[in-house]
């Protein structure tokens, strides 16, 4: 794949796909891919495609098959079934299997896997075996500049901090210009503060390099904040894939809803024009999508802590009472048990302090449509 010369932008806002030739071209395609280890199915009939320059994140709880998927793309695992292609070339199917070294796929490992016996520069140059020596030197310098480590050319990996090691790992895997770059839990070894910083940094580097990338994580905040698209995985399949905001606001399943953010469900009876809940009745328009088919039936409405507000009141007017208080620093999240039996969460500013046992009236303050699921 040809790429334009890397732009030397220094702005913090160069989040543009500067180096991508054709953003609509599919670079990576997984078609009905499965992987089992004996009786245990790790990945089941998974299909996925990733466009040129796109950053897709596979998000899911541990054991959902996301890392296996990544390793199959890299060629470190063999799919049991299905087909994987990169840049329109089949690299693995039922009969053929291309080895990792013949795939043009880069990978940034969870613990970076830097070669401890080589310097930073030698690590980055490691994959540049078919280049002339001075070209290698130039390419290494260029990458060191890209990841902002030009001063660390001759250091050993053990002399670098976690964030620096990660940037070296990134530079090393970008050096041979891979068609696809894979990132395996890239931020899990960093402390919380650095993690947030490196998220922005890595996204910037990937976008500047214009590389197509797939990241794997179990951290929903990370997935939502760095990705162009997010694929939520559960039990070896993709539960939902899409733009981060769309997935967060319209989770297609109860699993996705509860995996993203602190989800509570409000049971509601649907009538022709209103829904009746433990918090009172609301216009049926508040529900997202057509609901006519469920007229007269019970549904569960997704409410997140920021959708609700609790107000202290007396016993007679209360919808329920506070059963737990969780202090997060800037905010409190109160767990409220409603008289209807539902348990919901309400988020409040840190100055609003209620004691457990306090009777409260709960208001629905959401200014967006609410997702809902038929009651099981």
């Amino acid at each position: 794949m040809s790429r334009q010369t890397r732009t030397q932008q220094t702005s913090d806002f160069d989040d543009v796909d500067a180096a991508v030739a054709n953003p609509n071209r599919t670079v990576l395609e997984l078609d009905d891919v499965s992987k089992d280890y004996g009786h245990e199915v790790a990945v089941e009939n998974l299909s996925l495609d990733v466009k040129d320059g796109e950053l897709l994140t596979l998000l899911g709880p541990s054991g959902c098959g996301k890392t296996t998927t990544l390793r199959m793309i890299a060629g470190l695992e063999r799919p049991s079934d299905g087909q994987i292609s990169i840049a329109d070339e089949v690299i693995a199917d039922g009969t053929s299997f291309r080895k990792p070294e013949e795939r043009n796929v880069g990978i940034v490992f969870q613990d970076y896997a830097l070669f401890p016996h080589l310097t930073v520069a030698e690590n980055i140059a490691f994959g540049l075996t078919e280049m002339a020596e001075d070209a290698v030197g130039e390419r290494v310098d260029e990458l060191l500049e890209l990841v902002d480590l030009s001063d660390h050319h001759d250091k050993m990996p053990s002399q670098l901090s976690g964030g620096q090691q990660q940037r070296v790992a990134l530079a090393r895997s970008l050096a041979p210009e891979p068609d696809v770059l894979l990132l395996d839990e890239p931020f899990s070894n960093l402390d919380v503060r650095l993690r947030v910083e490196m998220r922005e940094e890595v996204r910037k580097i990937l976008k500047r390099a214009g590389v197509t990338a797939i990241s794997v994580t179990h951290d929903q905040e990370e997935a939502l904040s760095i990705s162009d698209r997010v694929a939520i995985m559960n039990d070896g399949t993709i539960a939902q894939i899409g733009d981060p905001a769309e997935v967060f606001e319209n989770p297609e399943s109860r699993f996705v809803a509860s995996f993203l953010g602190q989800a509570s469900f409000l049971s509601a009876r649907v009538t022709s024009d209103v829904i009746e809940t433990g918090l009172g009745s609301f216009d049926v328009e508040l529900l997202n999508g057509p609901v006519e088919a469920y007229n007269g039936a019970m549904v569960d409405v997704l409410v997140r802590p920021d959708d609700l507000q609790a107000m202290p009141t007396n016993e007679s007017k209360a919808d329920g009472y506070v059963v737990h208080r969780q202090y997060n620093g800037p905010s409190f999240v109160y767990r409220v048990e409603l008289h209807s039996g539902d348990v919901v969460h309400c988020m409040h500013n840190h100055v609003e302090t209620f004691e457990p046992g306090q009777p409260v009236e709960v208001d629905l303050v959401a200014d967006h449509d609410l997702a809902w699921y038929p009651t099981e």
Partner: protein
Amino acid sequence: MGTKDRYERLREQATTSERDSSPHTLLAVVSLAISLLLLAPLVWIFLRAGEIEFARAVELLTSDTTVSVTLNTLALVTGVTFASILIGVPLAILTAQTDLPFKRFWTITSALPLVVPSYIGAFAFVSAFGPRGVLADLLSPLGIEQIPTIYGLHGAILVLTLFTYPYVFLTTRASLLSFDGTVVEAARTLNHTRWEAFRRVTLPQIAPGIAAGALLVALYALSDFGTPAIMQYDVFTRMIYNEFGARRLDYASVLSMLLLVMALGILAVESRLSAGRDGAYVSSGSRRPGLIRLGYWKGPALLFCGAIASLCLVLPIGILLQWLLRSGTGYSGGGFAFEASYAWNSVGLAAAAAAICVVAALPIAYLAARGTSGISSLPERATYVGYAVPGVVLGLALVYLGLRYVPFLYQSVILLVFAYVIRFLPQAVGTTESSILQVDPQYIEAARSLGYHPLSAFRKVVLPLVAPGIAAGAALVFLTTMKELPATLMLRPTGFETFVTYIWLVQGAGYYGQAAVPALVLVGLSGLSMLVILRREDTS
């Protein structure tokens, strides 16, 4: 090496946490006294050599004999070291990183030759391949009268290699296992084939492990007395023993000094190597590298493992069993009957050495593990010098010291036990120290925070955790003392026989059959000591 990393971490914790220093001063004085006492006999070698007139010393050092013995020794050490790498490294890779069938079995058989004392291996090989040996007996009906002689350099290299290569095997295997497999995957995603990844990533990282094992082999080959003696190959150890027998102590001391210098040289390289290794390669990952599929190579690989196991285990044990079962002239002889008292002598000596070593090791090990300054590891290092001193040299030093300064101890059991303590104390120090290091200093802090007095915290928490290490050290010293050959030969009281001296006696007289039972017992005992070591590695 994985455990080593953990020790290093704990050692750092130990040195950074606060503690008062007064008990350490006492500990340091005791430890230093012990190590000085142990090192004192070695000083004699230098003193004795210094007594020789300069012109005479030069004459001795440059004599044809000295030069040829030096070259012989170098040839033996080099040959054994390289041959051990050639056998040990492939076996380690096969058992650690490939889909070789029955890997656990081959791992055990590859390590097991260590349990055969090399002089017993040498007997067995001479008996199998020597003149009038098993092979000659088999071939003579076919009209083959002459077979290449087993004696000499190649025989000594063959035998020493077969029974010492496991050092290389074990250290290489350990570095392969502790090595982070994701870096191999990283290399492969950076367009390297499996072989290129091995060459550029794996090999540089396991090289220190290979070198550590190779140096152990070199040290062993340099100091071994039994094998070259049986193979009738003139190296330092054999010459020193012969000069000692002929009561030419000044030449023996010159040769001893040369041998000692070479041994210390190897030890110095080893310690520098292990110092450089500490924390040099930080790999945080723990994923095992994917197994290499052998494919068509499976057959040859199995053949290789099988051939080595046959030569190292099946052959010598088979020969011993054959000695046991066959009774003819040359196999069982008159006048050399084994007496039960020999066994009791061996056991008594070994038990005494083990008890003294454990007591002497405790302060030294504790100081090295918990000490704060560089000096605190000095006594520990000093004891390791005893480990490098060839038994022949130590025997000679103690004979001379006994004769000159403590005649009432000369040819006494006390002097012999002292020799064992000097040689094998490092084993007790090593196991004790590693078990002390495994006790996180925070355990004591935790116990104290739960209301225990420091001393009762030590008794309740540290002692139970350290006890198995101390016991293992005692067992190791006991078992290695049982099979020690040269110092026993040189220092035992006249007429005092043990398993080892008895085997040596009947072997020298050609009555192999008589040696079968004690030799099998020694192999069995060495097997036990191996078990002790492996058990400790499993738990740490």
